[in-house]
């Protein structure tokens, strides 16, 4: 049984301007000890998917209108809110992109970590403080005895993200959802944080769902990749397969447009146009308005096509592996 399984998840927002079908049929799974990358551009539904798992979608206007979210066999979508609270921050934790805004500025970092521990573990305050100190030490905060009583503004961006990780992992979650955890950080700090996550994963055996737009981070840290476009599945594949033999025209276009892979100074192959507004998603395959392979058939929902072990693509015209995408 997978740790987490999303089956045809649909989260829509009902606004005055119309219905935003931000997540519309997303299915994938995360195993224990596995890191799954969820990639796509702005508006592809990757963050809404993450928020849906913990049912953090503001309701109204948002609502999970269909599908299942199975966590260790239990359906989180239909779980009563009291039972869900026991899961949140305990067996599933989340870290957000902005360490600057996701810590409360008027409490010390210690207070914030200790609160989470007291809420979910049967320990007294002294023991909770010990656990918090231990976590701060584990995530590489220098002088944790001093830092624990400091306020978020006294810490650098990288330190704050470490505090967030310490908080998220203090209850030894089985699943960690990391939404762009290093996007706001410098590369040398990003390398530290990614290394730290890897090391903690090896120790605690948790599954990680890593949401990012950075294909470099995906290549180096994930086992499996889910590519989303316009709230729908485009492709899922083991990481090395995705980079060597992507078969969705969107994935191929995305990989080709990376400057890292093109000869210096050359014009980069681009995907024409831009991501349409969720109010104006085309019917059928949502990528068809920008796709070079599109045909009239694409006006119908794309079928799921198996391409190999663990590799599937949602497309009417799956492509052979692109040449030159070494």
């Amino acid at each position: 049984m997978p740790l987490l399984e999303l089956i045809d998840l649909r989260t829509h927002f009902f606004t005055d301007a119309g219905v935003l079908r931000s997540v519309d049929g997303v299915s994938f799974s995360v195993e224990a000890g596995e890191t799954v990358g969820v990639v796509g551009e702005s508006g592809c539904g990757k963050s809404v998917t993450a928020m849906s798992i913990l049912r953090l979608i503001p309701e109204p206007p948002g609502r999970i209108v269909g599908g299942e979210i199975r966590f260790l066999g239990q359906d989180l979508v239909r779980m009563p809110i009291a039972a869900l609270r026991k899961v949140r921050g305990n067996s599933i934790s989340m870290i957000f992109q902005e360490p600057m805004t996701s810590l409360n500025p008027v409490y010390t970092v210690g207070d914030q970590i200790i609160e989470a521990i007291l809420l979910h573990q049967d320990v007294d305050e002294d023991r909770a403080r010990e656990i918090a100190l231990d976590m701060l030490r584990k995530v590489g905060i220098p002088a944790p005895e001093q830092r624990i009583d400091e306020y978020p503004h006294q810490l650098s961006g990288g330190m704050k993200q470490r505090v967030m990780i310490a908080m998220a992992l203090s209850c030894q979650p089985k699943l960690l959802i990391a939404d762009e955890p290093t996007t706001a950080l410098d590369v040398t700090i990003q390398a530290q944080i990614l290394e730290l996550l890897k090391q903690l994963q090896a120790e605690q055996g948790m599954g990680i769902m890593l949401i990012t737009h950075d294909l470099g981070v995906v290549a180096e840290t994930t086992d499996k990749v889910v590519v989303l476009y316009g709230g729908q599945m485009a492709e899922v594949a083991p990481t090395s397969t995705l980079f060597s033999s992507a078969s969705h025209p969107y994935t191929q276009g995305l990989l080709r447009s990376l400057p890292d892979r093109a000869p210096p100074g050359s014009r980069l192959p681009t995907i024409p146009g831009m991501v349409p507004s969720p109010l104006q998603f085309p019917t059928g395959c949502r990528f068809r308005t920008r796709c070079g392979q599109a045909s009239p058939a694409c006006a119908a929902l794309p079928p799921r096509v198996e391409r190999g072990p663990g590799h599937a693509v949602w497309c009417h015209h799956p492509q052979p592996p692109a040449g030159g995408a070494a």
Partner: protein
Amino acid sequence: MSAPDPLDPLDPSAPLLRVEGLVKHFPIFKGFFRRQVGSVRAVDGLSFDLARGQTVAMVGESGCGKTTAGRAILRLVEPDAGHVYFRGHDLPAAPPETLRALRRHMQIIFQDPFSSLNPRQTIAQIVGRPLQLHGLAATEAEAEAQVKTLMEKVGLQASYSTRYPHEFSGGQRQRIGIARAVALRPDFIVCDEAVSALDVSVQAQVLNLLLDLKEELGLSYLFITHDLGVVKHLADEVVVLYLGQLCERTTTKALFSAPRHPYTQALLSAVPHPEPGRARKRVILRGDVPSPIAPPSGCRFHTRCPLAHPRCAAEAPAEHTVAPGHVVRCHLYDGNSAPVDILAGAPNGGR
């Protein structure tokens, strides 16, 4: 004197732009009497040349002073010391009217396409106003015609010129910012993280546009970015900064194939590559970038450098030329031009 004179605009061998010993400190005031208690040493002695038609990338992490350097070069902030030679003038010393006339030739594209366009002006006003101010369009109608040509040039429909910025996506807004920058037919454009806020597929479109415009209009770019993939793709030369000071300056090719400064090596090794399974060694630097208010003594990188030795804390390194056009500010290259590898450890008993 046989060396090219940076003040002679007619000397074809002179660089388009020469920056010499640029310094910009921001004072920090405290208390009721606004006493100065210190300063942020954002840029502390930066020198480089930008040749005509070339692109120099300025890279480094947050707080390294790259944005301040870009602004001080254009005199959008007043530099505290140093020279910036451009079109026969030393910009920091240029009188206001000269500077105003020179502004036409040097423009900037900002990172944030959301806050760098006036929300109350139409695209025609945003792009057309500078044309009238600098006398490149005598009448409103003339400006309008030029705006339409410019919009098509940057890949926007000319009929959109009456729209307001909020009606455009991030990528389109960045194109508007580019149209505004090239409207005055400048020689030199500072691109301050111009593609950093864009999605991958849109970023590729905008990079292509910048490359096309460079060729078509003979532009020179100072490209400020933290994205080394972008640097590798479009820069001819690279300047690496750390805490307001130069670490290394060389051609893009040399920088990526044989980086010399320990910081450059660590920076390059930290960048994740979109190639899974690629065998590589990574140096993970300990700690954070120190504050530019109280930068470390000596070499500013010594607190995080795995190869630091006592001299690094005591004495600021000089610029050492290790190969033609390749300058490194590091004691390890004092009297030694052989590459040092932080992955392998120090050659001369450092650490």
